C-alpha cells in the first residue's frame, strides 16, 4: 500500500517534469499517465479505459502562457483510486475534480515561492556566484514542482480508497450520472479553448468541414486525422506552389522541417 502510493506519487512527478524539463512531450496527458498507473497496479485494461475517458474530456484543455487548466494530476489520482477500490470508470472523474482544485491552490502557493527563487537568482548573479544561480533554475525549480506534484497524489492514494468507497456508496445514482454528464459537457469547453487559439472568420470552414465529415460518416479520429493532414498539404500546395520562384526552394525545405 505504502509502496504503491509512493509509485503513483512518482507518476505524478513524471507528469509535471514532462512539461518542465522535457519541453512538454505530452507524456503528462491522462492517456499516457493512466496507462502507467495501470501497469503499476497490475490492471492495464482499466488504466487504458480511464486514460482514454479522461483524455477525451480534457483533450481540448491547453495552457497558453500563464492561463489555462489541466486535469492531469486529477486523472492520475482518479485512475489509481478506481483501480484500487474497484469503483466504476466514471468515478475517476468525480475524484479528478477536487484534485484539480487542490492542484490549482497548491500551484498558486508554489508560484509565490518561484518568484522568490527568481529574485534569488538575480542576487547570485549580482554576487558573481554563477554556479549557484544556474542551480536555482535547473535544480530548485524542478524540485519544488516535484514536491508539489508528489504530496497531494501520495496522500490521496494512501488514505483514499476506503474513504472514496464510502463516499461513492453514499452518493445517489442521479448525482453520479449528473457528474458524468457535466464532465462530458466540460470537454466542449476544452474544444472551444483550442478553437479560440486558431479560428478566424476565414478558416472556420475547415472546422465545419471536419465536423460534418465525421458527423455524417461516423469515421473514427484516426481517419479524420489522416484526412486533415492530406487536406493541409494539398491546400498548401495550391496556395503557395505557383508563386515567387526566387529562393522558393530554400524556404520550402525550411517549412518542411517545421511541419
Amino acid at each position, binding site marked *: 500500500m505504502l509502496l504503491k502510493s509512493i509509485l503513483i506519487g512518482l507518476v505524478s512527478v513524471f507528469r509535471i517534469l514532462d512539461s518542465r524539463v522535457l519541453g512538454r512531450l505530452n507524456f503528462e496527458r491522462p492517456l499516457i499517465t493512466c496507462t502507467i498507473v495501470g501497469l503499476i497496479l497490475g490492471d492495464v485494461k482499466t488504466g487504458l479505459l480511464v486514460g482514454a475517458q479522461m483524455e477525451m474530456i480534457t483533450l481540448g484543455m491547453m495552457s497558453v502562457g500563464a492561463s489555462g487548466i489541466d486535469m492531469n494530476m486529477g486523472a492520475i489520482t482518479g485512475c489509481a483510486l478506481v483501480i484500487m477500490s474497484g469503483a466504476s470508470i466514471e468515478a475517476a472523474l468525480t475524484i479528478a475534480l477536487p484534485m484539480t482544485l487542490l492542484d490549482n491552490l497548491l500551484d498558486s502557493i508554489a*508560484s509565490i515561492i518561484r518568484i522568490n527563487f527568481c529574485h534569488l537568482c538575480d542576487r547570485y548573479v549580482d554576487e558573481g556566484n554563477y554556479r549557484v544561480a544556474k542551480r536555482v533554475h535547473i535544480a530548485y525549480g524542478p524540485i519544488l514542482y516535484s514536491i508539489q506534484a508528489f504530496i497531494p497524489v501520495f496522500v490521496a492514494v494512501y488514505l483514499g480508497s476506503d474513504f472514496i468507497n464510502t463516499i461513492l456508496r453514499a452518493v445517489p445514482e442521479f448525482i453520479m450520472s*449528473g457528474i458524468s454528464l457535466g464532465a462530458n459537457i466540460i470537454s466542449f469547453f476544452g474544444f472551444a479553448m483550442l478553437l479560440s487559439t486558431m479560428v478566424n472568420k476565414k478558416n472556420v470552414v475547415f472546422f465545419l468541414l*471536419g*465536423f460534418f465529415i465525421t458527423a455524417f460518416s461516423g469515421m473514427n479520429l484516426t481517419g479524420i486525422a489522416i484526412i486533415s493532414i492530406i487536406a493541409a498539404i494539398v*491546400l498548401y500546395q495550391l496556395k503557395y506552389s505557383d508563386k515567387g520562384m526566387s529562393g522558393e526552394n530554400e524556404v520550402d525545405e525550411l517549412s518542411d522541417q517545421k511541419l
Partner: protein
Amino acid sequence: MSEEGLEAQRSYPLNKKLREFFWGGWCMQAMWNYERQMNTAFMWGMSNTIDRIYNKPEEDAKRKEAYKRHLEFFNITPQFGSFVLGLSAAMEEEYAADPDGFDPKMINSVKVALMGPLSGIGDSLFQGTIRVIAMSIGISLAQQGSILGPIFAMLISFGTSFPITWYGGKLGYINGQKYLQEISKSNLMDKVMYGCSIAGLMVIGGMVAGLVNITTPLAFGKAFQLQAVLDGIFPKMIPLALTGIMFYFVKKGAKPMAVILSCFVVGIVLNYFKILAV
C-alpha cells in the same frame, strides 16, 4: 580583449553547443514564474556560452552584464526555445568580436521580437495540431483496449518534438540571422500557420462530432422524440451547439475553474430533469 574566450567558444565542438541549446529549450519551463516567466531558463541555456566567451577573471563585469541581459522577461514554446538560444549565442559571439560596433541591446530586441510570433506558431503547432492528432489516434486505439494507443501517442509527440528542437537550435546558431530575414521576406510564419490551422481545425471539428456524444432524451409520447427530429436535420447537432456556447464563454474570458464547476452543477440539473444525457 576577449579574443581568447571568443576563440574558445568558436572552437568548441558544434554538437556540444547544440546539445546545450537543445536542453535549454526543453528545460524552458523548469522555473516558470509570474514575474519574468522563462527568464532563468534563458540564462541557463546561455550560461555555458557566456562562461566560455568571458572566461577570465578580469572579464567578470562583461560576464555579469551578459548574465543579466539574459535574465530579462522571456517566454516561448519550449521546442522553439533552442532556435532563439542558438541565435542569441551567435549574436553574443558577434558582440564579443566587435564590442564597439555591435550594440548588445540588439540581442534582447531580437529575442523580444521573436517571442510573440514563435509562441503563437508553437502553441498552434504543438498543442493545437500535433498533440490533438497524436491523442486522437491514441484514444481510438486505447478504447479498443490496445496499449498501442498511448505508445503511438508518445512516439508521434517525441518524433516531432525532438528533431524540431535539435534542428531549430542548429538553424538559429549557424544561420539564424540570414533565416530571420528570409522568414520575414517569404512570410514563412503565415505559411506554417496556414497549414496548421487547416489540419488542426479539421481535427477539432472531428473531435466535436466524434469524441463525446451528448443527446437529449426529451420526448412527448411516442410520436415526438426531439433527438430523432434533430438527427433528421443533421447528426451531432447538440455537440456543435455546446461548442458554440462554450466558444462564447471563452471569448468572454470566463475563468476555466468557474466554467468547470458550473458544468458539474448544470450537468446534475439537466440529467435530473432528463433534458440531456450522455
